[in-house]
C-alpha cells in the first residue's frame, strides 16, 4: 500500500492536531484532579477522560477539515451526477454489472418500487444494456415471500413488456429474484451465496440495501470510475437520508445533509484509497471481492463469536489487505437511503451494529490488516464503548467530588462544549458559503433555527442513547446475542402505552438520579440536571419525536428542510409513486389470504413453481409433504403453521398439486 508523500503529511498534521487537543485537555484535567494529591480513582478518571477527549477531538478536527475543504472547494458535494464534460464514449460498452439487493422480511412494495425506479432511471441514461437487477431474499415469513414474488413478477412484467421482440433473450436489463432456503451468514452469507452462483457473470456489483435508491447516471458514473481505476476494489457513494416525515427522521435527514456534508468531504480527503465500506450504495469489483472477502466464522459462540455481523468494515479491511483500494466518492450524489423513523427503531438498529462493532475488537490485532482498518475497527467499537465510558466518568466524578469551581474547570468545560458543538456551527458556516444550498435548506434564518433546535434535542436525547448503549454493551459482553429484525420502513407514531413500556427504565433512572443529586449533591453538580432532564422526559420526547403531525408542521414552518423535500429528485419521486401503485396491486388489506391466493392464482402459482425449478428445487420429499398439503386442502391454510406454509411453498410438486385440487375442492366465495 502506498501513500503519497503529501498525503502522509496531511495525515500526520491531522493526527498531531487530535493528539495535541487531547493532550491539552488531559493536562488541564490532570491539574484539576491532582491538585490535592493522586488517588487510584483520579488515575482511572484521567485515563477515561483522555480516551473520551481523544474521541471528541477526532470528530472536531474532522469537521474542521471538512469546513476548510468546503470553503476552498468550488465543486459541489454529493450532488446528483450529470455527465458534463466527460466524453460519452467512456460510457459506451460498460461491462456486465449487477445491482444486488439482499433483503430479509422487508416491505415488498418498498423493495420493488426502488428497483423499478432505479431501473427506469438507468434506462433513461441509454447505457443500461449490461446492467441486471438481482433481489436476493432471505425472507422467512411465507406471506412476505409470496408478496415479494408477486411484486417481482409485477416489476418483471412491467419492464419485459417494454422491450421489443428483437431484443435477444437473456441479455442485460433483467430483473431477477431468488430466495434462499436457509439464511446462513445473514446478509453477508446471502451475498456470498450470490457470488458463488452468479459472481463469475458480473465484473461489478452495486450492493444495495432494501431502502437504497440510486440515480441512474450516478450508477453509470460509478462503473466508469471503476473502469478507469484498475486498482479500485470498492467505491462507496455516501447516501443521503430521505423520505420520512416524523420529527426524528426529518432531524436525521437534516443532520445528514448539513453536518454530513463536511464529514464526508473530510473523510474522503483523509482516507483517499484506504477508505471504508458501509455495506450498501457502493460498487464492488466482484473478482477480488470473491477472492479476498469470504468471511469466516469467528471462533466461539455469539455474541462475540460466530457470524460476523458488521461485515462491511471487515470486507473493506480484507480488500485493503488484498492490495486493492477502497474509496469514498464524496463528490458523487444521487445516492439515498431512509433513516429509522423513531428513537426505538434507531436503537434497535444500534443493537445489531453494537454487537458487530464489538466483534471487531477481536480483529484489531490480527496479522495483515492495514493500520487504517484497525483504526476503523477501533472507532466502530468506540461508538458504543464511549457511552459506557461517559457514564463511568460521570459516576466516578460524583464519587470523587470533581466539580470544584475555578478557572481551570471553566476553561475545560468551555473547551469540551466547543468540541461538542462547534462541528454543528461548522456545518452551518459551510452552508453559508454556498448560497444555492442554503436556499434549498430554507434560508439562513430557518437553518440557524433548525441547528439550534437540533442541538437542544440532541442534548436531551444523548443520555437516552447513552443508557441504551450501556445496556447493549453490558448485555453483549455478558453473552446475550441479538435477534435480527428488519427495520421498519414506514412513518408511524409511537403510542403512549408503547412509549411508557419502552422508556420506564430511563424515566426511573432519571427520577432516582435527580433525587440523589438534589439530596446528596452540591450546587456544583447541578449541571448534571441538564443531562438528567432527557432521561426524566424520555417518554414525552419519544412520543413527540415520532410524531408525523409535528414533523409535517415543522416542515410547513420551513424547519429541518432538505433539498430533497423542497424538490424531490426524479428517481425519488418515481419511487414514491411506484410504491403506491405496487401497494395497490398487492392488496395489503387482504394479507391473511395471501397463501390462498398463491394456491388459486394460476399465473402466480406457475411463476412461483417456475422460480423454484429455476433454482433447482424440484426434488421433493412428497411423502413427508403430502400430509401438510392435505391439511392445507381440507382444513384450509389457516390450519398451517408458518413453518408448514414455508415447507409447502418450497415444494413445486406440492404447490402444483394444491393448485389443481383447490380449484376442485375449495369453496370459492366472491
Amino acid at each position: 500500500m502506498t501513500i503519497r508523500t503529501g498525503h502522509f503529511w496531511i495525515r500526520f498534521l491531522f493526527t498531531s492536531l487530535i493528539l495535541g487537543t487531547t493532550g491539552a485537555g488531559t493536562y488541564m484535567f490532570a491539574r484539576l484532579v491532582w491538585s490535592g494529591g493522586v488517588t487510584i480513582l483520579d488515575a482511572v478518571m484521567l485515563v477515561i477522560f483522555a480516551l473520551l477527549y481523544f474521541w471528541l477531538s477526532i470528530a472536531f478536527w474532522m469537521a474542521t477539515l471538512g469546513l476548510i475543504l468546503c470553503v476552498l472547494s468550488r465543486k459541489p458535494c454529493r450532488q446528483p451526477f450529470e455527465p458534463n464534460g466527460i466524453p460519452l464514449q467512456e460510457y459506451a460498452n460498460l461491462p456486465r454489472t449487477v445491482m444486488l439487493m439482499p433483503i430479509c422480511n422487508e416491505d415488498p412494495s418498498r423493495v420493488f418500487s426502488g428497483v423499478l425506479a432505479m431501473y427506469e432511471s438507468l434506462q433513461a441514461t441509454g447505457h443500461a444494456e449490461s446492467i441486471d437487477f438481482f433481489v436476493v431474499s432471505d425472507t422467512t415469513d411465507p406471506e412476505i415471500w409470496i408478496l415479494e414474488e408477486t411484486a417481482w413478477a409485477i416489476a418483471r412484467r412491467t419492464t419485459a413488456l417494454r422491450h421489443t421482440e428483437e431484443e435477444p433473450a437473456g441479455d442485460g436489463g433483467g430483473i431477477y429474484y431468488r430466495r434462499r432456503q436457509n439464511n446462513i451468514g445473514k446478509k453477508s452469507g446471502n451475498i456470498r451465496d450470490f457470488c458463488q452462483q452468479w459472481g463469475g457473470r458480473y465484473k461489478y456489483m452495486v450492493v444495495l440495501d432494501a431502502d437504497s435508491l440510486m440515480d441512474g447516471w450516478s450508477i453509470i458514473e460509478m462503473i466508469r470510475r471503476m473502469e478507469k481505476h484498475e486498482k479500485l476494489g470498492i467505491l462507496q457513494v455516501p447516501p443521503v437520508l430521505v423520505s420520512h416525515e416524523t420529527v426524528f427522521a426529518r432531524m436525521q435527514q437534516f443532520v445528514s445533509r448539513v453536518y454530513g456534508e463536511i464529514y464526508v468531504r473530510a473523510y474522503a480527503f483523509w482516507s483517499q484509497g484506504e477508505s471504508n465500506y458501509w455495506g450498501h450504495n457502493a460498487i464492488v469489483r466482484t473478482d477480488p471481492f470473491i477472492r479476498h472477502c469470504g468471511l469466516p466464522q469467528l471462533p466461539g459462540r455469539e455474541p462475540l463469536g460466530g457470524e460476523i455481523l458488521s461485515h462491511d468494515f471487515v470486507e473493506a479491511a480484507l480488500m485493503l489487505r488484498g492490495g486493492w483500494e477502497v474509496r469514498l466518492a464524496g463528490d458523487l450524489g444521487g445516492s439515498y437511503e431512509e433513516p429509522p423513523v423513531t428513537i426505538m427503531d434507531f436503537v434497535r438498529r444500534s443493537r445489531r451494529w453494537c454487537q458487530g462493532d464489538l466483534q471487531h475488537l477481536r480483529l484489531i490485532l490480527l496479522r495483515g490488516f492495514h493500520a487504517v482498518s484497525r483504526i476503523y475497527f477501533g472507532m466502530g467499537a468506540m461508538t458504543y464503548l464511549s457511552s459506557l465510558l461517559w457514564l463511568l466518568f460521570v459516576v466516578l466524578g460524583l464519587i470523587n467530588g470533581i466539580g470544584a469551581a475555578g478557572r481551570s474547570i471553566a476553561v475545560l468545560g468551555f473547551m469540551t462544549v466547543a468540541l461538542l458543538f462547534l462541528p454543528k456551527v461548522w456545518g452551518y458556516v459551510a452552508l453559508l458559503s454556498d448560497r444555492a444550498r442554503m436556499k434549498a435548506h430554507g434560508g439562513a434564518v430557518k437553518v440557524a433555527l433548525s441547528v439550534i433546535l437540533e442541538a437542544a434535542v440532541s442534548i436531551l436525547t444523548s443520555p437516552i442513547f447513552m443508557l441504551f448503549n450501556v445496556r447493549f454493551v453490558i448485555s453483549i459482553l455478558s453473552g446475550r446475542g441479538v435477534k435480527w429484525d428488519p427495520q421498519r420502513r414506514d412513518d408511524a407514531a409511537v403510542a403512549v402505552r408503547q412509549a411508557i413500556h419502552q422508556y420506564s427504565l430511563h424515566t426511573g433512572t432519571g427520577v432516582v438520579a435527580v433525587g440523589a443529586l438534589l439530596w446528596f449533591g452540591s450546587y456544583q453538580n447541578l449541571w448534571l440536571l441538564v443531562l438528567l432532564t432527557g432521561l426524566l422526559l424520555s417518554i414525552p420526547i419519544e412520543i413527540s419525536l415520532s410524531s408525523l403531525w409535528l414533523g409535517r408542521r415543522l416542515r410547513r414552518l420551513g424547519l429541518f428542510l432538505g433539498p430533497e423535500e423542497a424538490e424531490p429528485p426524479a428517481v425519488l419521486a418515481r419511487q414514491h409513486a411506484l410504491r403506491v401503485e405496487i401497494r395497490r396491486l398487492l392488496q395489503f388489506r387482504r394479507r391473511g389470504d395471501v397463501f390462498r391466493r398463491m394456491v388459486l392464482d394460476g399465473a402466480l402459482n406457475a411463476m412461483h413453481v417456475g422460480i423454484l425449478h429455476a433454482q433447482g428445487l424440484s426434488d421433493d420429499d412428497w411423502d413427508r409433504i403430502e400430509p401438510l398439503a392435505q391439511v392445507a386442502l381440507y382444513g384450509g391454510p389457516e390450519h398451517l403453521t408458518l413453518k408448514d406454509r414455508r415447507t409447502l411453498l418450497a415444494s413445486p410438486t406440492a404447490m402444483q398439486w394444491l393448485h389443481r385440487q383447490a380449484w376442485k375442492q375449495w369453496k370459492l366465495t366472491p
Partner: protein
Amino acid sequence: MAQMTSTSANDPLAASPSEREAVQRVVLYFQSIGLPQEKATAVAEEIVRGSQAKWTRGDSGLAGRAMDRAMTRIAEWFDRLAASAGAPTPGTHAQLGWNLRPLLRAHPEVFLVSQDLPEDFRRAVAAACKPLLPLMAPRMMPPQSLWQLPHVWQRAIAYAYLMWYRLRTMRWVGRT
C-alpha cells in the same frame, strides 16, 4: 379473486346444481387468468358440455372433470404459444400466464389461439422467453483466514493469560 357468476336461467346446463357449479368454477378459473366474464362463460359452458360425455347424473365429479379439462386446455395453449416463440426457455411456460393476463382482458378473442396473434401478445410471449434466472457462473468464495496474531501479540496475550490464571488460583488467605 373474481366474483362467482351464474349461467343464464334459459341455459339447459343451469338446470342441475352440479352442472351449474362446474360452469361457475371454470368461469372463475378463466377469470383468474384474465379472461372477461362473457368469454369465460362461453368457453366454460363448452368445456362442461364436453365433460358431460362420460358423466351420468348424480356423479359428483363433473366440476372436477371440467376443471381438469380447462387446465389441460390452458396448458396445451401455453405449449403451443411457447413453441411458436422460437426460443423458449424452461421458464417460458411459467411466465406466459402472468404476462398474458393483462392482455387477455383487451383481446379475449385470442384466448386458446396460437396463430396470427396481435403485436402486444407476440411481445408478451417473447418476453416470457427470458430466463427466470440467468445462467450461473459459479465461483468459489473461500473464507479468509483471520486467526493469525503477530507473534509478539501471541506471546503478550499468552503471558497475560498466564498472569490472570495465577492471580485467580492464588491462595490469598493462608494455607488450610
